């Protein structure tokens, strides 16, 4: 339990730092803005209470906001994502529920399951984020394109990170 907590805190700090120090500075044009910190909310353990996920999402979003100068923007997107997570998990659950002690990762549930689960969460996060940032409808379609391309980039990075993690665990 304690190691799980420590591992999650470490993951939180690592993902935030990677996001604001590395990803933020990689500029691939206006349409590709991956936000890999969402991975933290995606792979929280199944047992995490629902209300805790909301608050964790809120804090995670505010932390990112501090670095991106966007008060409340990322927090709003993260809270929406955290709110949707339990429902999505229920929707995709195997017939006899999730095994205890497992996490919603590629390692335990395979690529197809993980991709469909995380795609919904990532797209909803990016939708809220980009439309709230623009705050008007005049650039509707270019923003939609931004959401789609950025979500693909985020998903790709998230899967790559998962594979790096997996290999590490097998060695242990």
């Amino acid at each position: 339990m304690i190691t799980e907590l420590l591992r999650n805190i470490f993951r939180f700090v690592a993902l935030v730092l990677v996001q604001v120090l590395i990803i933020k500075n990689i500029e691939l044009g206006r349409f590709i803005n991956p936000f890999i910190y969402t991975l933290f909310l995606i792979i929280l353990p199944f047992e995490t209470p629902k209300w805790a996920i909301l608050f964790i999402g809120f804090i995670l979003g505010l932390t990112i906001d501090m670095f991106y100068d966007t008060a409340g923007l990322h927090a709003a997107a993260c809270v929406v994502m955290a709110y949707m997570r339990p429902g999505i998990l229920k929707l995709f659950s195997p017939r006899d529920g999730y095994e205890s002690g497992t996490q919603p990762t590629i390692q335990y549930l395979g690529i197809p399951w993980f991709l469909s689960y995380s795609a919904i969460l990532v797209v909803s996060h990016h939708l809220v984020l980009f439309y709230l940032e623009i705050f008007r409808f005049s650039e509707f379609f270019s923003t939609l394109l931004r959401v789609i391309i950025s979500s693909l980039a985020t998903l790709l990075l998230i899967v790559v990170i998962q594979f790096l993690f997996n290999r590490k665990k097998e060695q242990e």
Partner: protein
Amino acid sequence: MRNLLLFIWKHYFFFVFLLLEGFCLYLVVQNNYYQHATFVNSSNKLSANVLETSRGVKDYFYLKDVNEGLAQENAELRSRLLESYSLVVNDKHVMNDTSLHQKYTYTSAKVVNNSTNRRNNFLTLDKGSKHGITKDMAVITNTGIVGQVKDISENFCTVMSMLHSRTIVSAKIKKDGSYGPLTWDGANFEYVTLSDIPTHVRLVKGDTIVTSAYSLTFPENIKIGVVDSWERKSGEYFYTVRVRLLTDFKKLTHVYIVNNMMKNEQEQLETKSEADSKE
């Protein structure tokens, strides 16, 4: 009442969500419309220090360009020194110190955080209230304008970049003085848009665009960019001009914060006349 409480307890997840989301939206709206000094921005100590360290490493790679720029500017300033003017015999013009009144003062600052790839871009500078920086001061470099100070903490300030959807700067074409609002359409960080230029103006590719005298913030004749192309939309009597910025916003490292010492005086007078005309 008891039923209501039971109802809320049963759906607590939804209500916690509403509460948090409402708070987030409040922050966003407050930040967008009133531009209050919000506490979640990069002039706060923790994030500014992390970003400053990271910037310190990055600065090293730009040293060559910065040195060239500084050397160029030094040369330009040196040419304006009194020593570099030769005395003209029988010149009647006498420079009297009391006849000059300083209007603008400059503070140099270092960029510790910067972005160009978002719709609304900000910079963080390492000068704050301790150095006499106040809201709405202009920020420029030796190659052109950068933006306007937004939030200030003790040691840092954030700047609303020219590359922000709500930045509007009054600019004019240097050769004939026709002016219009300058905005950024969000497509490319190298180009901005100057609108409302009357069609009788003979535009030439490469014409210099500078700040106009109608801005309270920016001094007049600060360089902005050069004319790249222009078009007249059907049904409009004005040109919309695409302007290539002279400043490379990706490579900003050292900037100047400009303080207009007569701003308050002008502002007070103008609000007074406006109030009078309403009566």
